[in-house]
């Protein structure tokens, strides 16, 4: 939804998320996982590839507490982390 009024250029088309919206974590149940993830990001200069284990842990926390629909982790792109050996991408 861009407000650019020029017809020549392409405008941005927002798309709904594939799996919908995250329910809000009102009680902060997964806050500790989030803090771990943020700390990992800050330590690794915000490289996502090095903190995927923590993001996987956060999403697993959400799934356990009904804050996210249960999905097999492969479908969330964590196929390489399932065996427990994190690959350094």
């Amino acid at each position, binding site marked *: *939804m*861009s407000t650019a009024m020029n017809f020549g*250029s*392409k*405008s*941005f*088309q*927002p*798309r*709904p*998320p*594939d*799996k*919908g*919206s*995250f329910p*809000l*974590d*009102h009680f*902060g149940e*997964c*806050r500790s996982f*989030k803090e771990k*993830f*943020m700390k990992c*990001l*800050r330590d690794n*200069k*915000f*490289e*996502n*590839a090095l903190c*995927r284990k923590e*993001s996987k842990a*956060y*999403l697993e926390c959400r799934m356990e507490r009904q804050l*996210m629909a249960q*999905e097999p982790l*492969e*479908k*969330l*792109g*964590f*196929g390489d982390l399932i065996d427990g050996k994190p690959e350094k*991408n």
Partner: protein
Amino acid sequence: MGGLWRGAWRRVAFCGWRWSHPGSPTKVAESAEPFLRPGRSGTGSANRGLRRLGTWRRPNPGPDLALQPPRRPKSTNPFTRAQEEDWRRRNKTVLTYVAAAAVGMLGASYAAVPLYRLYCQTTGLGGSAVAGHASDQIENMVPVKDRIIKVTFNADVHASLQWNFRPQQTEIYVVPGETALAFYKAKNPTDKPVIGISTYNVVPFEAGQYFNKIQCFCFEEQRLNPQEEVDMPVFFYIDPEFAEDPRMVNVDLITLSYTFFEAKEGQQLPVPGYN
């Protein structure tokens, strides 16, 4: 012009005499009288019964010349007249068909909008150049490790919404094909519960079609209680085809921007699905 007028007179008298001839009890003058006023269609006139003798008026020539009754055949020969009637009938049919086609086209142009939406829904294209992404794609996608993209985050609120809304990281480095998690934080400093709804924007626009959100917090009402602070995650990935697009060769920075608006109770905001 005068010559034409005299011809009309002659025709009028002749026709009037002929039509009144077969057994009609009306006087010739009475039946001929409507024809003396060529502005009306003589035989079909409903006011005929109200005509009275002695109300003859000399019809004025000028404008009546242009108002010839449309049904009057141009020739008096019965064979050619029949042919003319036939042509006229055919012309009428053709005209009806053409008019129907024109109306049909107009209707089709109005119907095109919902029909196109239906088509987009069934084929799942949704107006975007890239076809819909299935979750199998996420499963099978291979990260393109040599292409590092910096994603920066921006947060805005509408003026009427009093939340404190900000990203929890300024940037994150991802590669296409790798799923990533990012957090925003929102706090409601007021004493009343507030419902917000957000939308997002990705610049550059062309890169926006490769930016796929698996799950986020946009387009749905999010309610914050008084003094509540929540983490809002965004789980996204950049399509691996990004690395193969020649237009994206120089794109190293993508900015994801979220804007929160206040939602009134029961207000239904349009969810993008057709645009």
